[in-house]
């Protein structure tokens, strides 16, 4: 490194923009859109960090990564050390560096952002994680503490489950993750598309957890093959964590929704991502998408559906959302990427009926034009129909990306588990323990559909709660019975 930069010089360095595939190329493939910073760009970006004495970014991170410390190592060019610092707090950096909404978290509170653009913390995190893989050698994981002899069952291998598993394994507990599907990752594999999060990365990160001693069990549907209670009584676990996510698709309840060609976002994305339907017939699962496709909703899941439909070769891809772009819940970056990919956004548009032919195949949709009225409970202006303003669009495929609820499979089969009125699990926020002693929960099954990193943050809190529970309550009761 040359001479130390002054604060002003640091802040005046331009934020390094993410190299991306050209929109017109990328809509023809499923390769990753964001290509990653070069080493040179990463070091320059790291130089922009002021290394604040009281860093606000760390508080903005749901898993509390020591951001200034890892960026400092990057300024020195020591990527290995930088990554080790990240992994102390987050064992899945390649995933978080890609899918975290940093603009609402660490980067939102970055001091540099007050006057200039904030330090691109997420891009730096991704860079070092990818750098380690590119080096080829052994992936370094935090050290595992001495065995405690306690056994913990994790239900679901999505972000919440993986984060909890990693944290508990590092503390020396014996951890088994039960996954209902045949691959690990939950929403990271069935939901988030390849072009945003390559599945190889999820596989690698899960492989790293296995190196930490985490045991993965696939095709285990807890609630069916074993109940939560049986995990204690038959399988001798000392604690159970439920991280089953928001895997219940919502439909609108409008006429014609059972027609062929109406998919939940979950079904459409699962066919494409988990089952690799984009590569039919080399893979056996068809997608069955038509040529004119509408996606209802404008969140991140809807963006994934729109951009997937485009890549599968749909001639026309329409987004139907009842509010406007300003209220769209998608990350700005996702929205912009979709716009670059020539998605036809129809704001203030809400489907009221789906038409089908005699074979029950979708032929079109009736759309109600909306306007924004008074703010509702969420603080956003409520969309209200404009009387008499309806029109029809011809379509063959409609994908419902209007949200997901808590999957009831585990919760309904677990006696004594307190749920709120939406079916989410009620937990003590400090320990994440549910109404059943020794049973903990976190992620979307507790909060309702949210983000990967919030689920991981919850997993970390739960891991603390579980660790304390094991060391205090279980140890005492075991000592008594011994």
């Amino acid at each position: 490194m040359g001479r130390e930069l002054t604060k002003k010089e640091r802040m005046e360095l331009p934020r390094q923009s993410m190299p991306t595939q050209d929109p017109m190329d990328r809509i023809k493939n499923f390769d990753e859109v964001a290509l990653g910073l070069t080493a040179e760009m990463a070091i320059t970006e790291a130089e922009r960090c002021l290394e604040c004495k009281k860093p606000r970014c760390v508080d903005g991170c749901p898993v509390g990564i020591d951001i200034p410390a890892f960026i400092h190592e990057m300024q020195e060019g020591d990527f290995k050390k930088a990554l080790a610092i990240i992994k102390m707090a987050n064992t899945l950096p390649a995933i978080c560096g890609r899918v975290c909404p940093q603009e609402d978290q660490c980067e939102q509170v970055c001091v540099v952002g007050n006057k200039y653009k904030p330090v691109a913390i997420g891009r730096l995190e991704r860079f070092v994680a990818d750098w380690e893989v590119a080096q080829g050698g052994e992936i370094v994981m935090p050290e595992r503490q001495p065995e405690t002899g306690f056994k913990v069952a994790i239900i679901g291998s999505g972000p919440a489950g993986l984060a909890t598993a990693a944290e508990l394994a590092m503390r020396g507990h014996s951890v088994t993750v039960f996954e209902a599907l045949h691959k690990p990752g939950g929403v990271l594999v069935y939901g988030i598309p390849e072009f945003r999060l390559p599945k190889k990365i999820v596989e690698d990160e899960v492989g790293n957890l296995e190196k930490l001693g985490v045991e993965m069990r696939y095709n285990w549907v807890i609630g069916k093959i074993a109940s939560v209670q049986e995990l204690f009584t038959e399988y001798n676990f000392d604690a159970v964590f439920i991280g089953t996510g928001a895997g219940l698709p919502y439909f609108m309840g409008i006429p014609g929704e059972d027609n062929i060609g109406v998919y939940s976002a979950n079904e459409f994305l699962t066919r494409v991502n988990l089952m690799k339907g984009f590569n039919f017939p080399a893979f056996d699962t068809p997608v069955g998408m038509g040529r004119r496709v509408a996606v209802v909703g404008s969140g991140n899941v809807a963006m994934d559906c729109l951009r997937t439909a485009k890549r599968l070769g749909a001639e026309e891809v329409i987004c139907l959302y009842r509010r406007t772009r300003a209220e769209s819940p998608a990350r700005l970056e996702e929205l912009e990427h979709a716009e670059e990919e020539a998605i036809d956004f129809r704001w203030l548009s809400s489907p009221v009926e789906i038409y089908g032919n005699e074979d029950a195949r979708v032929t079109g949709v009736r759309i109600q034009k909306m306007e924004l009225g008074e703010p509702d409970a969420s603080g956003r202006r409520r969309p209200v129909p404009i009387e008499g303003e309806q029109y029809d669009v011809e379509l063959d495929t409609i994908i419902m990306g209007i949200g997901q609820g808590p999957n009831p499979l585990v919760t309904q089969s677990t006696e004594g588990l307190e749920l709120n009125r939406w079916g989410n699990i009620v937990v003590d926020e400090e320990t994440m323990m549910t109404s059943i002693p020794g049973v903990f929960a976190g992620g979307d099954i507790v909060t309702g559909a949210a983000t990967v990193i919030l689920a991981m943050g919850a997993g970390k809190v739960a891991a603390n709660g579980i660790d304390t529970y094991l060391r205090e309550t279980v140890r005492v009761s075991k000592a008594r019975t011994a």
Partner: protein
Amino acid sequence: MPTLLEIKEIAPAFKQYVVETPEIARKHQAGQFVIILLHDHGERIPLTIADSDAEAGTITLVVQEVGKSTMEMGLMSEGDQIEVVGPLGTPTHIENFGTCVCVGGGAGIAPLLPIARAMKKAGNEVISILGGRTKELVILRDEMTQASTEIIYTTDDGSFGAKGFVTNALDRLIEERGKPDIVVAIGPAIMMKAVADMTRPLEISTVVSLNTIMIDGTGMCGGCRVSVGGDSKFVCVDGPEFDAHTVDFDLMMKRQATFLPEEQAARLRFLENHECKATKGAEVK
């Protein structure tokens, strides 16, 4: 991964697989199913459980070779491994109803077996009506005989039992002996619909088990949804059994045809690629 311990051809294009899967065997109840995946390029297909043995740690699957994946499974050997997840779905409601008529058609006889057995064990008089196109397609006759108090056969071609459909036999049975307390009908959608249409005006409580397109089997994708009493239900978690009188069979049959073009193309491609092996298999037999 679970191992295929035993493979037996029980009828033309029908194979019976005994699969080593102790945890599923221990928990299986009548009416439940599994989803299998043959390999990492495969599709997840739901299959009903025809039998289970908790002590031996095995379940029995009876598979009709109708499409690419089931034909491909037919080429597997004992000792091969597949992915199996289950037991899925809500178990059959079993109680002593009195007289229970079990109507099974074609591949539907397989899932009917554990239900008939459980109904008989619960004290019901179990009268089974089994049908198929021709004699050799009326499968599991010995097992069903044991599981029933009385058994009636029908074939479309009259090669075995009474000539005609299971509904003709059901009609006669009701006429001769009055209304049973419950009917359980499992078979092709068109058969279940015909049974429902017959028992609805007579107000005989009737249960059917639906076999729809599925992916995860845990209520996550919604691809299996059917209209029951005007509400959208998920076959994988709300079912697979429903009150036959409220199922919209017409819509269900249309939805079952969702991927018909893809399925036919995949089947043809598979036959072209495997003609040689498939013929060899038949010659050995």
